[in-house]
């Protein structure tokens, strides 16, 4: 499936997401099962599968990682964590250090330090996205150039996972605070 074609948008990383969201909404309005409650079985089936496809396309396109994965796949490259090249030693070292610092801050329940770390990783995340934005801006980019971008996807996964973990830690601390009042 080409999620960009399904939504009728250009195949690129840099998207105006509010506009794409609006497009998704308009397509949903045209296809949602509620609009076909009275229709015959085959029409219900056809519109339902199209509605599912539209929702899937929006789910893929709205998140930077899945959007990038779709762009690589459409360029004929196989991505996914098991297929991508191993991350560089440099990236692994940096990730380990960050994780250690996060563990320390978590143990001390130091929300300020956690926030600062998250800010640093978030800046790196934005940097990685910028590389993808530039790399996928030119529709006629050569395969070799696109292939060179694959490690950036790996970086993005690292950053995302780290930020998710920060989010979970913050939730856990907030929960513990409430439990302490209980």
């Amino acid at each position, binding site marked *: 499936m080409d999620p960009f074609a399904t939504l009728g948008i250009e195949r690129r990383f840099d998207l*105006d997401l509010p506009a794409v969201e609006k497009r998704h*909404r*308009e397509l949903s309005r045209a296809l*949602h099962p509620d609009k076909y409650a*009275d229709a015959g079985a085959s029409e219900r089936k*056809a519109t339902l599968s199209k509605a599912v496809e539209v929702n*899937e396309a929006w789910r893929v396109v709205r998140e930077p990682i899945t959007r990038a994965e779709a762009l690589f796949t459409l360029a004929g490259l196989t991505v996914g964590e098991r297929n991508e090249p191993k991350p560089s030693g440099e990236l692994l070292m940096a990730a380990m250090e960050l994780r250690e610092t996060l563990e320390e801050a978590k143990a001390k329940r130091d929300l300020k330090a956690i926030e600062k770390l998250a800010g640093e990783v978030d800046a790196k995340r*934005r940097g990685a996205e910028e590389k993808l934005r530039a790399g996928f801006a030119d529709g006629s980019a050569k395969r070799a150039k696109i292939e060179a971008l694959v490690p950036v996807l790996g970086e993005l996964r690292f950053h995302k996972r780290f930020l998710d973990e920060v989010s979970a830690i913050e939730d856990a601390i907030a929960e513990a605070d409430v439990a302490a009042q209980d």
Partner: protein
Amino acid sequence: MLLEIFDPKARPRPVGIDLGTTNSLVAFVKNERPVAIEDCNGAALLPSVVAYAENGVVVGAGAKARAADHPRDTIVSAKRFMGRGADDAETRRMGPYEFVSPGAGDANVVKFRVGAGTRWERAVTPVEVSAEILRALVRLAEDELSSIGGAVITVPAYFDDAQRQATKDAGKLAGLEVLRLINEPTAAALAYGLEKRKNGTFAVYDLGGGTFDVTILMLEDGVFQVKSTGGDSALGGDDMDRAIAEEVFEQIGDGESAQSAARSTLGDAVARTPALIRVVLDAARAMKHALTESDHAEAQIPTKTGEKNVRIARDRFDALIAPLLERTGLACRRALKDAGLTKEQLDGVILVGGATRVPAVRAFVAKSFGREPLADIDPDQVVALGAAVQADLLAGDGPKDDVLLLDVLPLSLGIEVGGGVVDKILPRNTTIPAAARATYTTQEDKQTGFEIHVVQGEREMVGDNRSLARFTLRGIPPMAAGMAKLEVTFRVNADGMLDVDALETTTGVHQTVLVKPSYGLDDETVEKMLMDALDYGEDDLRLRRLAENRVEAHRLLTATGKAVANDAALLLPGERESIAVAMRALEEAASEEDPAKIHAGIEVLDAASKEFAGRRMNRAIARAIEGRRVDDVELAPNKDRPSSRSVDRSAEGTR
């Protein structure tokens, strides 16, 4: 009776039903406005209480009155047990009930033993209890409307698949055509949105009898879109009653509460007889209601040593429920975070659920969201009114507004992979209907079966999530490890209900596996209960099928007639004629008495109009993409786009 319900000449009216933990009610759209249907005493709320007795079943206020004397035969708050396993902690937490332990090989379903030790002793499931409540609502609605044309039933947004399935089963068991399950907060927003025609972003804070939900919704261009949802399916007004009840027990000195450290729960207490627990809980509820208006409340509790007077001040009550409110606050913060919004970006907060009448709740919401909440519509009725609006949109005769609900999956769905870890296949907050696929492979040489374990929840380890189903895909030819390719597909329909299938692709052997729910009832059991409950004979079944087929034929004829009239330009030469022939044949079949003939007529018309329908769909898609309705879809590169749009930020995953 059957003939009356399905009388083809009476215009069936769709209804909206709020099947609540404490109270239930039914509403319909009258002169383009939703109204709740009242009983002969002018009460719209039917207590969700079912009493079983030797001479039959009593539902509502009559049942509630029996609760104190027959605590084990009177089922209160059955919704809390819907779709739960017999061994869930929540099942055992509270209440005077006697449960039937499932035997080896039985489905792991909660069963209440009623009439224990009598001739009429039986076991009833929460689904059957809920069906009794639905039947009582249907009877109420039938007094007002000549015939009911399907129902929209609401469920808490946080309900998982098993709980939704149980609700749908209850509808089926009550003989209702369930048009759709919709989330309670979405229904509430629908009721508000339609009356006020607002665009904006809203939070719906729904504190009901047994469940708490918070939902962030965006209303834009007539589309109600759920941005995120969260909550706790085991937190509600009942917990406030329990908090007061503990206080009451302390005051009457039942000899348990004083030893504070390891204070037992109400359900475990030996000294607390089922009857006394019921009396104290009812008194607690009455005191909670009184505290909405006054700053203290009193009650008399009959005990072995005579009546005892108990008293509670509002300050004390507020302190007792503060921890509960803090728990709701956590869920609110998480929902905002998931939607990528701050509280300042909201345009309003809607209150739903009877428990939001408690002044401390309103104050807490006002404080948490930094604004006074909206409560212009009766918080006990707003959900049913919204459901009636949705039912009318789906099956009513009224104008089909350009209103649409875009709901999301409340909890992530995934499957178990190595080491008890969950691989999420569909993340929470995915817009539904949705589908997703994931591919797995074999771990061992010559492995011929895959065990698939479907779970729902946000936690990383399987054991911390809800187990929905397990099944094994067998018959895979022996291959080296890693050679087989297992493709698992999840499909979630617009009701938020899941269907999973698995297939091994390298061998070309297509195997679709039906998922048997871990909890709840399979279709066969529901069908059997339905037969038992309604005591159908062969003739009754045929009549029911006839009536259902007629309704379907009528719908299809109307829809096709409209399509042909509106989109004549899309008809190919000769197509109009062949559709017209099929329509006439179906009309004729519908006027006769043979359900099979009507069914055949429906299929013929469906086939005759299939390609025309496909063209209409493609044009609808093309129009949506052209933006004929909205012309401002710009997809130009824009490097320094301002990031003021919260939606943008959330979509980019920025913190």
